[in-house]
């Protein structure tokens, strides 16, 4: 340990100027200001959550639990994607490949992971309390929920560290994650029962969870010293590239990093192109690569399928005036995500047209062929999501699901436009408004793609929120308006976006 401390002290002494009293003052002042700013919203949110816990509607608990389970799965997936044990690029290059003992080198990262897990666990616990509710003794129930939440996140993070330390486990991590989710749900249900049970039983249950988590954390701490250098270097390099992309505010690069990381090193079963496409229709043959890529990520397809339930879950769980807006936002984001999930080919061809030139396919023909898959996928997603809302009674009677099909052309146009947008132009002016400064570069970048999709889906975007609350719009004219709007936007987009290379 002392060796590592000596190295870090040496690096600190050479790397930057010593910390002055002024630096310390600025740090403390910043923390105090942050505490003052956040104190009120955090306490009011906490108060409302704990107050709501006493009046939980049992019918909403299932949907709430599903949302919490999804959030937990997302947390675990993120931890695994990040590493979770990563180091700054310089440390990874110099300290990992050195005779220094590995655990002390990684100790600082481990502390950060513990802190992140504790914060995430606290949020999970409060959300659990809000969803499950229970009898009296708010303080006891809160302690129980916090213990369970922190046990889940700390134990999950420890499992992710163990998976990184044992590469053979890594491939089984996803299956383990599924099992952990099931166990979490079972445990939550037990705790839901326990929350209404005597205090002794509740304490015993919380202790069991915390003990299991502590054992996992102990194992992970022991495994820190055995994490292979290649795993650390790969995770640290990836984190460094992501940090660089974030620093340059070029989120488009993140898609490239994620895609390349996913496919690098994989052995796939090569297949010939469908005979029907070969040498007859060059553009569909080129676009077939998107279909094949999508077929090779069944987990992503399953996640998309599962996410069609989110609007229904939100609508069923949250009975507040803000729900309609949230449901509309979920519909828009989900449908757009589904469309954008299969535009990789268009993005690659636009960012680097070398392969598209080798293929000799015209830009308009290629883009038209590449629009089919996003159209189908977004149509399926939105149709299922709207059908779900119809089933739970959140929409008025009628075939509202058909709007999903009619929105698809506009969503595909938006997703393709998004895939082909340029990096953020940081030279664009900053507009100063009474509410603060607005950098137009990132704003325009963020709006590119969403603008076309919103334009094409204007009829349905206007109709769904109002129909959820009032059920007023006539469906027939809406379907006609949406059909015309969606197709028109796609056609205009394809005509205008084909670029200098003609079909």
């Amino acid at each position, binding site marked *: 340990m002392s060796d590592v401390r000596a190295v870090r002290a040496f690096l600190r002494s050479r790397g930057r100027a010593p910390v002055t009293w002024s630096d310390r003052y600025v740090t403390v002042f910043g923390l105090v200001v942050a505490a003052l700013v956040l104190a009120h919203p955090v306490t009011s949110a906490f108060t409302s959550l704990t107050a709501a816990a006493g009046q939980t509607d049992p019918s909403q608990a299932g949907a709430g639990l599903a949302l919490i389970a999804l959030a937990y799965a997302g947390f675990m997936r993120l931890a695994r994607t990040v590493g979770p044990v990563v180091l700054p690029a310089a440390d990874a290059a110099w300290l990992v490949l050195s005779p220094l003992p590995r655990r002390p080198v990684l100790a600082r990262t481990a502390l950060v992971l513990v802190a992140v897990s504790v914060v995430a666990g606290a949020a999970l616990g409060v959300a659990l309390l809000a969803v499950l509710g229970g009898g009296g003794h708010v303080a006891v129930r809160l302690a129980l929920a916090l213990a369970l939440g922190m046990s889940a996140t700390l134990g999950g993070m420890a499992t992710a560290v163990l998976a990184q330390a044992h590469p053979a486990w890594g491939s089984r991590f996803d299956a383990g994650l599924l099992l952990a989710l099931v166990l979490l749900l079972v445990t939550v249900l037990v705790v839901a029962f326990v929350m209404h049970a005597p205090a002794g039983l509740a304490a015993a249950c919380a202790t069991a969870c915390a003990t299991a988590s502590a054992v996992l954390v102990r194992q992970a701490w022991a495994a820190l010293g055995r994490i292979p250098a290649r795993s650390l270097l790969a995770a640290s390099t990836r984190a460094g590239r992501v940090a660089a992309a974030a620093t340059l505010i070029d989120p488009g690069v993140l898609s490239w990093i994620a895609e390349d990381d996913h496919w690098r090193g994989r052995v796939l079963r090569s297949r010939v192109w469908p005979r029907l496409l070969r040498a007859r229709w060059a553009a569909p043959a080129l676009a077939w690569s998107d279909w094949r*890529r999508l077929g090779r990520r069944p987990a992503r397809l399953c996640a998309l399928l599962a996410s069609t339930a989110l609007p229904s879950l939100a609508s069923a769980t949250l009975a507040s005036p803000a729900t309609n807006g949230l449901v509309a936002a979920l519909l828009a984001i989900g449908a757009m995500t589904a469309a954008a999930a299969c535009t990789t080919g268009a993005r690659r061809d636009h960012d680097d047209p070398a*392969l598209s030139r080798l293929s000799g396919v015209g830009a308009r023909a290629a883009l038209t062929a590449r629009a089919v898959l996003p159209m189908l996928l977004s149509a399926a997603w939105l149709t299922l999501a709207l059908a779900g809302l119809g089933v739970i009674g959140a929409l008025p009677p009628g075939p509202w699901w058909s709007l999903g099909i009619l929105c698809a052309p506009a969503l595909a146009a938006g997703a393709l436009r998004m895939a082909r947008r340029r990096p953020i132009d940081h030279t664009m002016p900053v507009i100063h408004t009474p509410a603060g400064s607005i950098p137009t570069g990132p704003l325009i970048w963020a709006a590119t793609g969403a603008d076309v999709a919103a334009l094409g889906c204007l009829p349905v975007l206007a109709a769904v929120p109002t129909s959820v609350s009032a059920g007023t719009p006539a469906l027939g004219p809406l379907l006609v308006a949406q059909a015309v709007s969606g197709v028109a936007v796609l056609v205009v987009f394809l005509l205008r976006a084909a670029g200098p*290379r003609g079909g």
Partner: protein
Amino acid sequence: MIVMARDVGVVAGEVPILTGIDLAAGPGEVVAVVGVNGAGKSTLLRCLAGLQPPASGEVGVFGRPPADTAAFWRDVAVVADEPAWYPGLTVREHLELMRAVHHDTRLTVEAALEEFDLVERADLAPQTLSTGQRQRLVLAMALLRPSRLLLLDEPERGLDTAFRDRLATMLTRYAAAGGTVVMATHDLGLARAAGARRVSLEAAA
């Protein structure tokens, strides 16, 4: 003439990159553009591909100014920097893609894998390959598809000596079948083995 460049000049800002360059290549000819770093070899190739408009002079390919159109790219194959590989496709599928979008390919996928020593790597993603193997893959894609003009920017990049000799043979075969090759290269051995006519560029003052 397949390629004709007359008195071509390119300027970047106020810095001249190319000045008064002439180049001609006919059917069945291999031309090697050689010169020191910064002489403008890659820039000249970009001019021939229509990717860099010259500030002065004339460039003609197949008797017309080069144009970034599908028809042009059906006749011209360019290999320059490493391309952005399609994620989720294997080495074999990248070759299959070329076969799927072009009529009458010059090689079958199996033959291309054999010729470019990629059989053992056929089911891997290109990102997994070494630099030299990735260069072989992009050359295989360019030589598998039909074309009348090959524009190669340092095709020897990352290739081992033995494979450079094989590449020279492939380029000779391509030219013997009536194709035209214009390549920028630092490897005089490759140019010699391919029977290339050398065109030397001097760094513009």
